[in-house]
């Protein structure tokens, strides 16, 4: 997989705020997502890639050619804007044809191309409509093909589904992935919605405070986050703070202040071998990896804690428990409602319970 887009040491400040701080990544022929909270610098990174912001330092390479100082109209990169930014005074056809017209392509080819792309998104009958006569989902698809029709090397998408209803969002997410496979263009997708990123992207870059925290495939990010931020931002997790006390094989023992139970865990692959005795670490346990029971489980290779059920939320396929551990930590546990004779049906509010999970599902993260 050769690099289509490479970003090197990119930085940008607005006044005193470092919006983007030394960002590096490369993108091949893939669906790449930037995931982060608002203000994390993902949109600024995207806008610098598009040429709409000028970086303070660093460079942007498109197929090994330095485009850092090229204006947006000269870059072979197109953008789907957050609120679509359709031209309000042009109809759907004129909107989609805008980019090709700039390239001085003859009208017959333009007509053919526009019809082809309108058909691809199933909006052939809307060619003469004005943007304000379209639904949100339709506007979104027009914005998408208006950019795609120019056959850019990279398509940038800035929260393109943000303004839509959940149902349409889910449908368009699938469409986007399918369309990408048809047109074979690298997509860079900015979102603050982890579900979108996880379901659509081949790889995700998690951003926070202008920095890239971690880049990886969705499964890797979920199972092996490299920091509490990444663990918390992608999915839910329970975090315990402690100190490394002992190493045995691949496993480390972490002492948690106020706990008598010992916690054994594995460093995430991204931090392997990094820990010394005495290091402060975060211990992360995903709620669905934890089992809950009323009987004391005696089991090998399991961490066991005891606590009291504070809250039970029945959500159909699963039940969510909030369990207060003996030292006051609140733990979240997801239990699947699989079989009618499962033990969890007997658990009630204020019951004393045991929580246990496997050592190898206990992730140790550097702070």
């Amino acid at each position, binding site marked *: 997989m050769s690099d289509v887009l490479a970003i090197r040491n990119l930085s940008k400040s607005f006044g005193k705020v470092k919006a983007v701080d030394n960002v590096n990544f490369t993108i091949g022929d893939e669906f790449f997502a930037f995931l982060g909270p608002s203000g994390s610098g993902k949109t600024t990174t995207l806008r610098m890639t*598009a040429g709409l912001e000028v970086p303070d330092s660093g460079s942007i390479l498109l197929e090994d050619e330095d485009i850092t100082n090229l204006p947006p109209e000269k870059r072979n990169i197109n953008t789907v804007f957050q*609120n679509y930014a*359709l*031209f309000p005074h042009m109809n759907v056809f004129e909107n989609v044809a*805008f980019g090709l017209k700039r390239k001085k392509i003859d009208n017959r080819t333009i007509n053919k191309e526009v019809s082809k792309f309108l058909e691809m998104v199933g909006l052939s009958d809307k060619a003469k409509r004005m943007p304000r006569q379209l639904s949100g989902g339709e506007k979104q698809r027009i914005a998408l093909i208006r950019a795609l029709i120019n056959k850019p090397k990279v398509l940038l998408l800035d929260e393109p589904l943000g303004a839509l209803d959940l149902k349409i969002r889910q449908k368009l997410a699938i469409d986007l992935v399918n369309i990408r496979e048809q047109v074979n263009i690298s997509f860079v997708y900015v979102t603050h919605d982890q579900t979108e990123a996880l379901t659509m992207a081949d790889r995700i870059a998690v951003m926070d405070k202008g920095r890239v925290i971690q880049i990886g495939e969705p499964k890797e990010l979920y199972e092996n986050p490299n920091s509490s931020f990444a663990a918390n931002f992608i999915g839910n997790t329970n975090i315990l703070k402690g100190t490394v006390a002992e190493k045995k094989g691949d496993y480390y023992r972490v002492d948690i202040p106020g706990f008598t139970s010992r916690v054994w865990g594995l460093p995430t692959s991204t931090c392997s071998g990094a820990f010394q005795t005495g290091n402060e670490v975060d211990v992360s346990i995903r709620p669905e990896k934890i089992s809950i029971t009323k009987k004391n489980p005696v089991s090998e290779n399991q961490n066991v804690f005891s606590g009291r059920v504070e809250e039970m939320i029945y959500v159909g396929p699963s039940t969510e428990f909030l369990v207060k551990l003996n030292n006051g930590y609140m733990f979240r546990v997801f239990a699947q409602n699989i079989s009618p004779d499962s033990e969890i049906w007997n658990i009630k509010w204020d019951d004393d319970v045991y929580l246990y999970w496997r050592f190898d599902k206990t992730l140790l993260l550097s702070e």
Partner: protein
Amino acid sequence: MKTKSLKTHAALMMNIMPSFVYLLLLFYVPMVLMMVISFWKSGFMMLEPVFTLDNYRNFFHNSQYLQILRDTLVITTGSMFMLFVIGYPIGYFLGRVVKKYDSLILFLMIVPVEIGFLVRIYAWKIILSKTGIISSFLVYIGVFKEPARIFLYSKAAIILVLIHEWLPYVVIPVTIALKGIEPATLEAARDLGADRFTIFREIIFPLSIPGLFASFVLIFIPMLGEFAIPTIVGGSSTYMLGNVINNQFMAAGNWGFGSAIGVILLFASTLLIGLVIKVSGLEKLL
């Protein structure tokens, strides 16, 4: 449910009835009356409710009046065109270039033209006269051998004063229209390969057309009914229909004929506005 809707109905009536009745009696009835009287038999200080087309015939069969109609249209469309040419760059400056002080500059433009209508026309007469500052200045720097009037008593002088009177009403709508353009719209155009000039031609200018139209409606119809400006700076020849109407009502006493010219004026302005909507492709945006 029934009583509630009756109550709402009463509240609605209380809000709309006063203006409805007032404008009916003191605007619509008089306007209709003017149209009706334009078909009455009329002469000097004489008005008879007998249907006739003479008033219109007199107008359209008189080359002098037709010339004045042409002059009126030349002056008003010429002023309108000049207003757009002069005002658009200012609107562009205030709407797209300056970030600060734009409302202060707009304010400075509005204040003087909201007051002293007649007096400001007269001030232009002072400026353009033989002893005025322009003439004196040109003599002083040696361009003129002796003092002379500058454009005074001509169509050009009328157009100049009309520009003075209506300039803010071009600048403000253009400024508002240009300010309303979403930055993302322009970014999208650049992103799709448009250079500065293309962005202006394809995006900015088309999106400011509603502003231009608003100023056209606001300015053009009142301009058609102008008679003080041509009277003061237009000299002794009659240039505008407003003067003819004024003359028929205040001196010649032929009210039926005056009414007919008023109706012609209204008809011409309605026609022009319709034409402009068609030509500018505005219905797409409305």
